C-alpha cells in the first residue's frame, strides 16, 4: 500500500497562519519608508516587536486583558492628537493604520481580526504605491498578494470550531511553537504537484491581472482629487527651489539616484551634453542666489487643471517629441531644454509658467513621479528675451549706473507692490568689493560696446586659469562677500562658485547675467531607448544677455567650454545629428531601463495607449488572417489544379494509395481501440506505472532474475491492490538492488 502523505494538524496550521500574518504586517509597515510620512517611532516599534512576537507567539498570548480594553480609546486619542497637531489627514491616517497594524500583529487574532490585518496592509501598500508611483510597488503588491492569499488559505483550512476554541478563552496550545518542527512538517507535506500548480496559478493570476489591466476600459472623469494632494512632498533632495545656497548643488551631486528619464522620439537631435534648465535665479545675496520678487512677479497665475498647455516660444515643427519622467523629490520646476510648443500631462495638472525666462513649474512639489510630454522643443543654448532688449533700449546703458549696493536705478522696486523688474544687474556687494570686481573686469578686459560674447569667454578662461574644480571649498570663514573672497583666492571650487563668480564679473562689467540651475548631461540607456539623468548631473551655469535679443548660455566650470556656440540649435533644428550621448551600462542601466518601461508602459498607460494597443492587435489579427486565408487559398488552388490535370496511372496509384492508407489508419485505430488503450495508459495508477518503470530499468541493466524485489515489483505492477506490499519500501529496495548490481557486475 502506498504511503500516505502526512497531514498538517490544526496547531501547525495556526502556526503557519500566525507566521504569514506577521510577514504581511512587516511588509505593509515597511512601505511607509517610501512615503514622506514621519512615523519613525512606530516603524521602529513595528520592526522590533512584530518579528519578536512572530517568533514567540506565547508573548502575544500573555498580553493582559486590560490592555485590549484600553487599546481602542488610546488609538483614537492618539489619532485625534496627531491630526490636531499636524493638520494633515493622510499622514495621520497612515500613522493610525500603522498603530492598528502593530496592535493586530502582536496580539492573538481570530478570523475576523486576520481580515482586518489584511485590509490594513492593503491600505498601506496601495497608499504607498499611489504616493510613490515607484516600481517597488510591483514587488510590494506581489509579495502582499502571495502572503495575503496564503493567509486566507490557511484561514479556510483551519476548522472554524477549533478557531473559536483557540481564541475564546485561555492560552491556545499552538502558541508553544517549535519552528524547526513546523518547517519539517511543511517540507514533509510539500508535494511537487501542488507546488507546481500553485506556481502556475500564481503566474496565471499575474497574467490575468496584466490582461485585465490592459483591457479594463479607460475613461477619465478628471476630478483631480487625490491622495498625493493630501500629502506634502518629500523634502527636496535637489535644493532646486527659489533659493540656492552655495553647496546645495554639490549636495545634490552626492546623491546618485535617478532624477529624470527622458524619452526622445529622435535621439539624434540630442546633443552630447544637454542642459536641462529648471530654474533661473537673478538676485544675489551673500551665500547664494535666489529668485527676486520681480522675477517671481513675471510668473502667470496658476492655470486651472489642464492636460495641455501651449508655450509661447518658437515652435519647431520638425522637433522631436520629448517625454519626461521626473522623479519625486527633485523639484516642482520642470526640466526643459529650450522653448517649447506644447506641454501635455498624463493627468490634469495646474501649471505655473514664466514665458520670459522659459520656466514652467507645478504649484507644489509633487510627491510622486510626474510625467509630461513636450512637443516643438529643440535643445537651445540661447533664450530669446525681447522684453529686456526693449527695456535696455528705453533706458540707455549709461543710465543703468551701478550703485555701491549694487542695485541699479532701473531695478529699484517700483509700484505699489514694491516689485520691480528682475535683478539681472544686482550685485549686493560693498563699495570696496565693487572696486575689486571692477579691477578684475579691467584685468579680464572690459567689454567694448556689444562685445558681450568675447568678454564672457575671456572671463571663463580667466576663472579657469585662477581656480581648479573641486566638490568642496576650503575658504576660511571671514567677513566680506564669499564670492569676492573666493575670486581673490587661488582655492578650487564647484560649479556654483564658478557660475556665481561669472555672474558678478558680468554684472560688474554692466552685462546682465543670471544663474541657471538644473542638470547637465545624461547617459543613453540602450535597453529602454531613453536618456537617464541622475542627481549627480545637477549643475549650475550662467546665462548672459547679449544686449540685443538673446540670453546666451555660458558654463564657466572648468572643462565645460565656456560660452556655448549659438549656432548649434539652428543646426539641430535643421535635422543635423548632434554628438551621441554616452552609453549607460551595468546593473544600474538595466534597473533604470526597467524603471522607464514601468513609467512608459504601465504608469503612463491611458485611454490613447489602450486604443493604440487595440488598433495594433486588430491590424495584427487582420494581417495574420489575410496571410492564413491566402495560404489556404493557395493550397486549395494547388489541390484543384492537381485534380484537374490529366490523370495518369501513377497519379491514380498515388491517390488510391493515399485513400487506402487513410482508411487503414482509421480502421486500425478503431479496430485496435487505440484511443481506449491510450486512455488506459494515461489513467494507470501511478504506483503501477512506477513499478513498470523499475521493471524496465532492471531489465535494461541486466539485473539477474530471481530477485525478490522483482516479484514485489511485479505484484505492484499487475497484482491486486489488496496484496500490495508498501510501495515506497519496494522502490527503495529496487534502487538498492540496482546500485548493488552496478557495483558488483564485471566491468
Amino acid at each position, binding site marked *: 500500500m502506498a504511503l500516505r502523505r502526512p497531514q498538517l494538524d490544526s496547531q501547525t496550521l495556526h502556526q503557519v497562519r500566525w507566521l504569514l500574518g506577521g510577514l504581511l504586517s512587516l511588509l505593509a509597515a515597511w512601505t511607509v519608508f517610501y512615503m514622506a510620512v514621519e512615523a519613525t517611532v512606530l516603524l521602529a516599534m513595528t520592526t522590533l516587536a512584530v518579528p519578536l512576537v512572530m517568533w514567540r507567539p506565547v508573548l502575544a498570548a500573555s498580553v493582559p486583558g486590560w490592555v485590549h480594553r484600553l487599546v481602542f480609546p488610546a488609538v483614537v486619542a492618539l489619532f485625534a492628537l496627531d491630526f490636531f497637531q499636524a493638520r494633515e489627514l493622510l499622514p495621520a491616517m497612515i500613522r493610525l493604520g500603522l498603530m492598528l497594524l502593530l496592535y493586530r500583529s502582536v496580539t492573538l487574532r481570530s478570523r475576523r481580526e486576520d481580515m482586518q490585518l489584511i485590509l490594513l496592509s492593503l491600505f498601506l501598500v496601495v497608499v504607498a504605491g*499611489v504616493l510613490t508611483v515607484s516600481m517597488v510597488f510591483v514587488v510590494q503588491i506581489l509579495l502582499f498578494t502571495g502572503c495575503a492569499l496564503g493567509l*486566507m488559505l490557511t484561514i*479556510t483550512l483551519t476548522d472554524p470550531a477549533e478557531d473559536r476554541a483557540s481564541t475564546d478563552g485561555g492560552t491556545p496550545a499552538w502558541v508553544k511553537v517549535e519552528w524547526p518542527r513546523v518547517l519539517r512538517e511543511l517540507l514533509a507535506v510539500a508535494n511537487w504537484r501542488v507546488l507546481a500548480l500553485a506556481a502556475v*496559478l500564481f503566474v496565471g493570476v*499575474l497574467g490575468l491581472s496584466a490582461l485585465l489591466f490592459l483591457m*479594463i476600459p479607460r475613461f*477619465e472623469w478628471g*476630478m483631480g482629487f487625490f491622495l498625493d494632494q493630501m500629502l506634502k512632498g518629500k523634502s527636496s533632495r535637489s535644493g532646486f527651489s527659489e533659493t540656492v545656497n552655495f553647496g546645495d548643488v554639490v549636495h545634490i551631486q552626492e546623491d546618485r539616484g535617478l532624477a529624470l528619464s527622458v524619452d526622445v522620439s529622435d535621439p539624434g537631435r540630442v546633443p552630447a551634453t544637454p542642459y536641462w534648465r529648471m530654474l533661473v535665479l537673478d538676485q544675489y545675496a551673500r551665500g547664494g542666489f535666489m529668485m527676486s520678487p520681480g522675477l517671481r512677479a513675471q510668473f502667470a497665475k496658476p492655470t486651472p487643471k489642464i492636460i495641455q498647455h501651449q508655450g509661447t516660444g518658437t515652435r519647431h515643427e520638425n522637433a522631436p517629441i520629448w517625454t519626461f519622467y521626473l522623479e519625486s523629490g527633485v523639484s516642482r520646476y520642470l526640466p526643459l531644454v529650450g522653448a517649447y510648443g506644447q506641454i501635455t500631462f498624463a493627468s490634469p495638472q495646474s501649471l505655473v509658467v514664466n514665458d520670459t525666462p522659459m520656466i514652467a513649474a507645478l504649484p507644489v512639489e509633487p510627491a510622486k513621479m510626474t510625467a509630461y510630454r513636450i512637443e516643438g522643443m529643440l535643445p537651445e543654448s540661447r533664450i530669446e528675451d525681447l522684453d529686456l532688449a526693449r527695456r535696455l533700449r528705453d533706458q540707455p546703458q549709461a543710465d543703468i549706473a551701478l550703485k555701491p549696493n549694487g542695485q541699479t536705478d532701473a531695478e529699484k522696486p517700483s509700484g505699489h507692490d514694491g516689485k520691480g523688474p528682475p535683478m539681472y544687474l544686482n550685485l549686493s556687494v560693498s563699495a570696496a568689493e565693487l572696486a575689486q570686481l571692477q579691477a578684475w573686469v579691467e584685468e579680464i578686459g572690459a567689454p567694448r560696446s556689444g562685445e558681450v560674447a568675447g568678454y564672457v569667454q575671456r572671463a571663463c578662461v580667466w576663472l579657469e586659469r585662477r581656480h581648479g574644480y573641486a566638490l568642496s571649498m576650503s575658504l576660511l570663514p571671514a567677513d566680506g562677500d564669499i564670492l569676492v573672497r573666493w575670486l581673490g583666492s587661488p582655492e578650487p571650487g564647484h560649479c556654483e562658485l564658478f557660475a556665481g563668480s561669472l555672474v558678478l564679473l558680468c554684472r560688474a562689467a554692466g552685462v546682465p547675467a543670471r544663474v541657471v540651475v538644473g542638470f547637465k548631461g545624461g547617459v543613453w540607456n540602450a535597453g529602454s531607448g531613453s536618456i537617464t539623468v541622475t542627481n549627480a548631473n545637477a549643475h549650475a551655469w550662467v546665462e548672459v544677455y547679449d544686449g540685443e535679443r538673446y540670453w546666451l548660455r555660458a558654463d564657466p566650470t572648468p572643462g565645460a567650454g565656456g560660452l556655448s556656440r549659438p549656432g548649434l540649435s539652428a543646426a539641430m533644428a535643421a535635422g543635423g545629428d548632434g554628438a551621441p550621448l554616452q552609453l549607460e551600462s551595468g546593473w544600474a542601466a538595466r534597473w533604470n531601463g526597467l524603471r522607464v518601461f514601468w513609467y512608459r508602459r504601465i504608469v503612463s*498607460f491611458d485611454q490613447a495607449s489602450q486604443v493604440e494597443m487595440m488598433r495594433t492587435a486588430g491590424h495584427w489579427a487582420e494581417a495574420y488572417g489575410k496571410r492564413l486565408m491566402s495560404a489556404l487559398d493557395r493550397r486549395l488552388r494547388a489541390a484543384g489544379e492537381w485534380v484537374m490535370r490529366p490523370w495518369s496511372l501513377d497519379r491514380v496509384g498515388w491517390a488510391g494509395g493515399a485513400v487506402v492508407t487513410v482508411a487503414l489508419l482509421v480502421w486500425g485505430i478503431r479496430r485496435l481501440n487505440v484511443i481506449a488503450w491510450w486512455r488506459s495508459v494515461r489513467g494507470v495508477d501511478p504506483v503501477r506505472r512506477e513499478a513498470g518503470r523499475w521493471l524496465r530499468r532492471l531489465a535494461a541493466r541486466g539485473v539477474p532474475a530471481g530477485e525478490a524485489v522483482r516479484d514485489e515489483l511485479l505484484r505492484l505492477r499487475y497484482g491486486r491492490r489488496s496484496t500490495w506490499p508498501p510501495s515506497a519500501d519496494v522502490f527503495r529496495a529496487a534502487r538498492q538492488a540496482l546500485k548493488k548490481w552496478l557495483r558488483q557486475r564485471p566491468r
Partner: protein
Amino acid sequence: MATSTQSMPVPVTADWQQAGKRSRVARGFRWRRLLWSLLYPPEARAHRVVPTLTGSVLIGVSLGIGLAAYNTASNILFITLSLLLSCLILSGLLSWINVRRLSWRLQVMTPWRAGQAQLVTLDLRNRKRFVPTYSLWFEIGLKQAKQKTRLRLTRRLDVGETERLEWTVRPVERGLERVELAGLGSLFPFGFLRKTMGCEHACEVIVWPTPVEYHRRTEGGAWRMQPGERSRRVGQGGDLLALRKYAAGDSQRLVHWKASARLRRLMVRQFSAEAQDGFTLWVDLSAARWPRPEQFELAIRLAATLAEDLFREGRLVAVALAANPVIQVRSVGDIERFLDQLAVARLLPDSMSGGGAGLAATRFGTNLLTLAPDGIRGVSAYIDGTAAATA
C-alpha cells in the same frame, strides 16, 4: 419489560455520485428549460457561488478602488483593481477544481429504531489525477425528522484516496425516513466565495417503533401454559419436528449439517412448539378504536415490543395489521416485515381496518392478542379478551 430483536444490520448504500454529473433521468430538450436554467440553475446540480462577508468586503474594496482609479486615472489603482479581480477569478477556478471529480456515497446501516442512535456515513473519493481536495462540508439531513447537520472534511483528501465522514443521528419517530444529502459547500480556497452545489442523493430507511416498557398481567391466566403438551406446530421447542430447506433469515444454528451434506443443499431443523401457547397478534388500526393519537403511537410501540418478545420466546404464531394479509412468523425476516408495516402504520377509516375484535376472533381463532386503549393514556393487550399486558 422491553427488549428488541437483534437482527443483523444491513447496509443501505446509494450509488456513487460525482460533482457535476447530470441526473440519469433523461428529460427532453426544451428551449424554455434551457433559458430558465441559465437564469436560475436547477437546484439539484447547480453550482451556486455567493460572496461571503470576506468576499463582500473584497468586492466593496474593489469597487472603491475602481472608483478611485477612474476618478484619478491612476494606473497603480488599476493594477490593484486588476489583482483583486484576478484573485476573485482564481478563487472561483480553484473552488471549481476542488470539487471536480469528487465522488460521494451515502451509506446507512439498517434497521433503524426510533429514539436510538444510528450511524449515517458519507464516503468521499477524490478521483482527480493531480490535485487534492480540501475543506468541504456536506449538508445532510433527515427529511421527516427535520434534522440537519453539516459534515466537514477537515483533512486533505489526496488523489485517489477515500475518506469517511460519519453522522450519528437519533430519529425520534417511526416511519419512512429519507436521509438526504442536500448539497455540498466550500469556502476553499480563500474564503471569498461560498460555493454550494445541490446533490440528488438520498437513502430511504424505515424507522421501527421504539420499544416500550410494559407490564405483563398474570392474574387473569392469559399467559398460562399447559405443561407437557406438545404440538405438531412448528415452534421453538426441543423436539425435532421435520427438516426443511434453508430460507433467508434462518438462524445458522438451525442448519442440519449432516442432512445438508447428504442432500447437497442447506437444510434446517424444525422443532415442535413447547405447548399450545402460540399467539396471533392483530393490531386494529381503525380510527374509531384509537381516538387519541398518542395512544395509537403507544399501541404501535407496544405491538412491536410484544411481537419481538413473543417471537424470541417462540410463542408468536402469526401477526396481522388491520386488513393486511396475515404473516405466519417463521423467521426473523417475518418479524422484520411486520415491524416494517408497523413503522408506517397509520390510522384507517373503519371500513378499511378489517373489522373489530369480534371479527378478528372469527378470523384468527383462539389465542388472539389484541390491543385496546386503557384509560386516557395507557394501552392494554388482551388475549382472547383477557387483559394480558399494559403499557
